[in-house]
């Protein structure tokens, strides 16, 4: 028996099929979820994949946040269901206030696509337990609205509680405050990050690294061994 991981498709989502593939490669069952459906089809966890939902018009993630599927995701996340937001998914999570802060246009104003080195700062979340704290990984980064901002108090709080989950290494690619690449909620079930672990799961594809697979094996362990 394996666990079911829902992958949400909003209009304009791009990485849903890649994320489903990553979920399957890790040995989980991928369940497509449609933005108009409140029904989460009895999934055990949800990934909000990358893309440009609603074209990222207005603000990245701002319109998707109000979709029927998000009502259910927000409810279940609050009662502990693991949720991972990647890139646009992270933006949806901040717009939904499941995670604090906001994402803004990169400080250099360009879209940037590159192989990005990260440090896993918190290896105790639902999505990072297969990494070691302090482990360095490289996964693709690709966005134009990737600059993480929050007020000083929130940032201090995140740091103090160990909720900065990932930090950029070897150069901050977008002006994110305190080099933050991803964060977690206090319970560790909701995690968001800008880089794309689902694009680093096969040795032949993309950058040729598989450093992103750990996200999906982490959740497999959590759900199946729980």
């Amino acid at each position, binding site marked *: 028996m394996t666990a079911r991981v829902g992958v949400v498709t909003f209009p304009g989502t791009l990485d849903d099929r890649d994320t489903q593939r990553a979920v399957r490669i890790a040995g989980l069952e991928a369940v497509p979820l449609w933005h108009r459906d409140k029904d989460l089809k009895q999934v055990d966890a949800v990934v909000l994949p990358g893309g440009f939902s609603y074209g990222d018009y*207005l*603000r990245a993630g*701002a319109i998707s946040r*109000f979709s029927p599927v998000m009502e259910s995701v927000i409810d279940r996340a609050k009662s502990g269901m693991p949720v991972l937001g990647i890139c646009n998914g992270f933006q949806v999570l*901040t*717009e939904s206030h499941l995670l*604090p*802060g*906001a994402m*803004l*246009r*990169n*400080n*250099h*104003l360009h879209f940037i696509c590159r192989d990005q080195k990260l440090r896993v700062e918190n290896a105790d979340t639902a999505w990072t337990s297969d990494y070691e704290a302090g482990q360095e990984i490289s996964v693709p980064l690709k966005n134009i609205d990737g600059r993480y*901002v*929050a*007020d000083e108090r929130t940032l201090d709080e995140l740091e103090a509680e160990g909720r900065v989950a990932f930090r950029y290494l070897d150069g901050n690619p977008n*002006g994110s405050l305190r080099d933050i690449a991803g964060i977690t909620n206090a319970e560790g079930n909701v995690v968001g990050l800008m880089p794309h672990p689902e694009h680093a799961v096969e040795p032949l594809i993309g950058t040729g690294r598989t450093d992103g697979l750990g996200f999906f094996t982490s959740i497999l362990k959590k759900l199946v061994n729980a």
Partner: protein
Amino acid sequence: MARVVVDVMLKPEILDPQGQAVQRALPRLGFEGIADVRQGKRFELEVEGPVDEAALARIHEMAETFLANTVIEDFTVRVDS
């Protein structure tokens, strides 16, 4: 039909690279004397029916929950004359 304008600007403490890029380009284009530039968004809403207090209150709510992200942005609502 009446027009209501919602202006959304980044909060002053948030870095505005777009505004900065504009400001930095100005001297090169021969425009001096602009000390600062901030770039924001302007929404023009065509409102059906009367723009009374109730309507404005609703638009205010719309701006607060949707048009602006108040974590990073301030906004103003006004009827266009």
